[in-house]
């Protein structure tokens, strides 16, 4: 990002603009550097937990209802480690640990059945065009209230509703990255439905339904609400310092999956999620001076 791109919505003169930019970058740099160990551990522990549920439930070590609750949490939790991989936060291309970055990206979202390449492709567009009704792939989540946002996600799951990520891929059909993403997505979706049907016809229909199918739907609703709707609501402003808000959720930042400080992620996507809160506290005076949307309310 250059100083020119970092225009404040608040009225600040050019000297102040440069000073704010330098200060913001100096603070951000402190939090961007080290390998995000927490997020990597999060990925593998969450995935192993979800995989372990299958034998535990099938062999009656734990009841299906308990497996269902844990699986739903696993699905909801599986997106964020992959999100770091989408931004290459574990390792940049050409570095020794790049394989780990891509591995986390691919395996973390297995419970959610979100193909990594599709997630990365559409998420980069989301960052580039945040809140643009035509170009932001996540714009479909727009709704006046959080309850309506949840209902809208249910509507978006219906077969008659166009899949916004599918639309993006078809609009960019000439792009080899979009083509590859579409192919991987198709393979992953076919594998998912194939596994579900095979399990169901092999005597494990309820396990398939309550460890994967229903948790996946519930997890999708949760992720869509907290990662897309809440930080960008009401989605009526664009620009680096206004397209995302900070907020205080009455159930806390853990329930909100750390999205209270999502504004930090949009300003500095290279900063891992678990460092956003500390960075937000330090950056807050700068964000205030820039006229960012710091909405500390229980909305």
């Amino acid at each position: 990002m250059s100083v020119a791109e970092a225009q404040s919505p608040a009225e600040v003169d050019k000297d102040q603009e440069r000073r704010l930019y330098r200060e913001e970058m100096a603070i951000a740099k402190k939090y961007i550097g080290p390998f995000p160990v927490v997020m990597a551990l999060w990925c593998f522990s969450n995935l192993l937990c979800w995989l372990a549920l299958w034998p535990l439930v099938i062999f009656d070590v734990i009841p299906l209802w308990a497996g269902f609750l844990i699986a739903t949490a696993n699905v909801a939790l599986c997106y964020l480690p992959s999100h770091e991989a989408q931004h290459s936060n574990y390792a940049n291309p050409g570095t020794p640990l790049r394989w780990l970055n891509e591995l986390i990206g691919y395996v973390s979202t297995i419970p959610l059945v979100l193909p990594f390449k599709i997630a990365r492709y559409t998420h980069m567009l989301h960052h580039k065009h945040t809140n643009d009704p035509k170009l932001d792939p996540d714009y479909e989540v727009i709704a006046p209230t959080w309850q309506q946002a949840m209902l809208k996600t249910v509507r978006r799951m219906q077969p008659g509703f166009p899949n916004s990520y599918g639309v993006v891929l078809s609009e960019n059909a000439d792009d080899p990255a979009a083509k590859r993403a579409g192919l991987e997505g198709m393979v992953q979706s076919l594998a998912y439905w194939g596994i579900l049907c095979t399990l169901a016809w092999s005597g494990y229909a309820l396990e398939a339904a309550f460890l994967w199918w229903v948790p996946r739907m519930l997890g999708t609703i949760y992720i869509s609400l907290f990662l897309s709707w809440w930080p960008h609501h009401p989605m009526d402003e664009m620009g680096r310092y206004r397209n995302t808000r900070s907020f205080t959720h009455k159930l806390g930042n853990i329930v909100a999956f750390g999205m209270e400080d999502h504004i930090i992620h949009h300003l500095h996507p290279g900063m891992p999620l678990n460092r956003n809160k500390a960075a937000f506290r330090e950056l807050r005076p700068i964000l205030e001076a820039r006229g960012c949307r710091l909405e500390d309310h229980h909305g």
Partner: protein
Amino acid sequence: MELLKAIYPWGPLLFGLGFLAPVIAALMTNLGVQAPLGLTEIQTGLIVGGTWGLVAKFGGRWI
């Protein structure tokens, strides 16, 4: 690829028969629900799942 393109629009019906049918049958067995009209649980599942899949395919919604 062409085969997949031809099958894709029928996804809801295939899902109704391939997944919902055994799930409905398993739910009936577990909840002790008797299948009507002398049908077996899986026959009931195929009828309900298949019909639901057709409704979703032509109506565009599961619910």
